[in-house]
């Protein structure tokens, strides 16, 4: 391959100026990291389109001309959030709701009880000063400028974020719901989330991303970073729900690290945006740790999805499993790249990965790229992928029982994504089911 170099014709207005106000936020150590992230971002070349993980998406999609960013038009989207919050809190089946408006304003609703039990649910900016022993230890450990240009961008410019700490032994029975709303056309936001779940503690988080530009010709931009630490014997479920507006360009990097005996369930769900590039990774860092990912996305219109998953077995005697489902209609496209890496010292690991793509019509396109980097032979590892339309004979079977074709398709697609839906809390399951139904009806 040619030596990837900076695109000569690129627009340099996206560079972060030295005087950017975000760089001044936080205590000294944080300001230092922000500055180093800025330098890393400004000096890193725009990834070449031939480069690994950039073959399917133009990196320029996620670069924002700072002079054109509008910081004003946030209000309209945020009205809807209040309604959702009220419904969620009134339902009483959540441990609380955290609202995140454009990575700037963080609000807390019904989280008092959880905090009274010793948990910390607060703004990342506040945590950086009030809990430096935790934040300095964990923030930027997994998502940082070493990951790439866009992770450096978030590292420098995140305005405010969410910090969740669950102390050792605390079991949080109900899910904690995070509602992140993006601004309208021309907006750019850099949400950031840090979660630390203590030893033998349990937490379930729903991380919902909504809002954004309604107009594809005047997009909005989101670049989010999520870091999750599951300490020994912890049990964590993280559900990411991306239902952003049609004009959103979304970039997300998620990394989790789990220690001995910990289990992690990651559920990436994606429905929205014009272009959505999401990277979910779990590092299995202690014996008997277990990670599962059950993902699904449903693309319609001209939506483009570019997803990566990583299971990195650093420790031996660890188990990972991925089931990633893709449904596409109209002219939607998806590229899925799933990497399993098993280190030389990580003996007797098990790792499984499956990516199934259902193409509802002939204008869609899906790519599936399994990647295995297995550095020892004492492992059990398998991967599989399928790609194609609904089997016409499955449809015929349902038709032969009187079920009409639209309903038959709905039942088969719903059945296709069921393994993923079963991993999310019941009330969310119904909502996701209705998203799937709406997409099938062409909305």
């Amino acid at each position: 391959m040619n030596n990837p170099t900076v695109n000569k014709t690129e627009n340099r207005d996206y560079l972060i100026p030295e005087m950017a106000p975000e760089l001044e936020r936080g205590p000294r150590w944080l300001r230092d990291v922000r500055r180093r992230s800025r330098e890393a971002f400004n000096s890193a070349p725009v990834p070449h389109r031939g480069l690994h993980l950039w073959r399917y998406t133009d990196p320029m999609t996620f670069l924002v001309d700072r002079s054109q960013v509008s910081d004003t038009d946030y209000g309209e989207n945020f009205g809807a959030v209040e309604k959702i919050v009220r419904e969620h809190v009134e339902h009483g089946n959540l441990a609380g709701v955290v609202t995140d408006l454009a990575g700037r304003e963080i609000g807390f609703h019904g989280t008092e009880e959880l905090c009274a039990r010793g948990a910390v649910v607060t703004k990342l900016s506040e945590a950086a000063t009030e809990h430096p022993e935790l934040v300095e230890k964990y923030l930027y450990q997994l998502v940082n400028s070493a990951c790439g240009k866009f992770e450096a961008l978030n590292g420098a410019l995140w305005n405010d974020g969410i910090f969740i700490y669950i102390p050792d032994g605390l079991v949080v029975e109900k899910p904690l719901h995070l509602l992140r709303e993006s601004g309208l056309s021309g907006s750019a936001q850099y949400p950031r989330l840090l979660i630390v779940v203590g030893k033998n503690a349990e937490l379930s988080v729903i991380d919902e991303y909504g809002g954004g530009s309604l107009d594809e010709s005047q997009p909005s931009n989101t670049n989010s970073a999520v870091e999750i630490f599951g300490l020994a014997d912890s049990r964590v479920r993280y559900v990411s729900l991306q239902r952003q507006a049609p004009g959103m360009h979304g970039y997300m990097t998620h990394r989790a690290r789990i220690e001995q005996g910990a289990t992690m369930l990651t559920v990436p769900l994606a429905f929205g945006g014009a272009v959505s590039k999401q990277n979910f990774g779990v590092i299995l860092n202690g014996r008997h740790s277990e990670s599962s990912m059950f993902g699904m996305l449903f693309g319609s219109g001209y939506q483009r999805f570019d997803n990566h998953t990583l299971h990195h077995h650093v420790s031996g005697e660890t188990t990972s499993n991925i089931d990633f489902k893709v449904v596409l209609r109209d002219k939607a496209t998806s590229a899925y790249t799933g990497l399993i890496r098993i280190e030389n010292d990580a003996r007797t690991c098990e790792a499984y990965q499956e990516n199934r793509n259902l193409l509802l019509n002939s204008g869609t396109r899906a790519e599936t790229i399994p990647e295995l980097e297995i550095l020892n032979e004492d492992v059990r590892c398998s991967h599989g992928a399928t790609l194609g339309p609904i089997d016409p004979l499955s449809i015929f079977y349902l038709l032969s029982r009187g079920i009409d074709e639209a309903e038959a398709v709905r039942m088969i697609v719903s059945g296709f994504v069921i393994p993923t839906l079963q991993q999310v809390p019941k009330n969310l399951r119904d909502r996701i089911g209705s998203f799937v139904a709406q997409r099938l009806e062409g909305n």
Partner: protein
Amino acid sequence: MTDKQSLFEFKDIHVAVEDKEVVSGVSLTIAPGEIHAIMGPNGSGKSSLSNALMGHPDYAITKGEAYLDGRNILDMSADQRSRAGLFLAFQYPLAIPGVSVANFMRAALKSHRGKDANMSDFRKLFKAEMKALSVDESFATRYLNDGFSGGEKKRIEILQLSMLQPKMALLDETDSGLDIDALKTVSEGINRFHSDANGILLVTHYQRLLNYVKPQHVHVMMHGKFVKHGGPELALKLEELGYEWVAQELAEKARV
């Protein structure tokens, strides 16, 4: 019109698979309350005929007519044929992952009745039918045919038959893959379903199902055509002498 009362009738049906003709002009009239059997060796076209009548996308009816209760079914899509009262029990029922037997059954009933069945009525009916067919209740929440044994699949087909109560049932090799106990259970299910008002067309290679479900009329199919018609005694003779016997008889006739 034929002289007897017709429930299901097809005339001069030709079926092609990928432009190759596999059924070459068969006709039959079934009156309410009648049980007919089509018997024939493998590859005779009998399964193709039943699949084509149901509207299978791989089997094209290139010529002929078919009527259920006087309505032309060949103008209908497969789901319309089902709602009009036609049913096909498949030889190899497909697995539909993620769709539970109960949800599938509910959707099918809803499509037939035009509205959702009352939940408790549905449960009662469903449970009773499962019990009658010795289907364990756990099957209600299992995904349709997903990991089912051959015998379990056939029971579920007959369960669907008894729930949907079609006017005309085509049963394609329903006896294949069944042990003797399952064969009895399935046959009892078919006999329970059968009434003076409905019709059954059994499609089978072997005679053994006919010990339990008794047809009044037996039709032998070879090379895409009906070559012999008779009563139940014909099935027994076939069991004894094999299809070779019919083939020889045909050859002799051709010489005369």
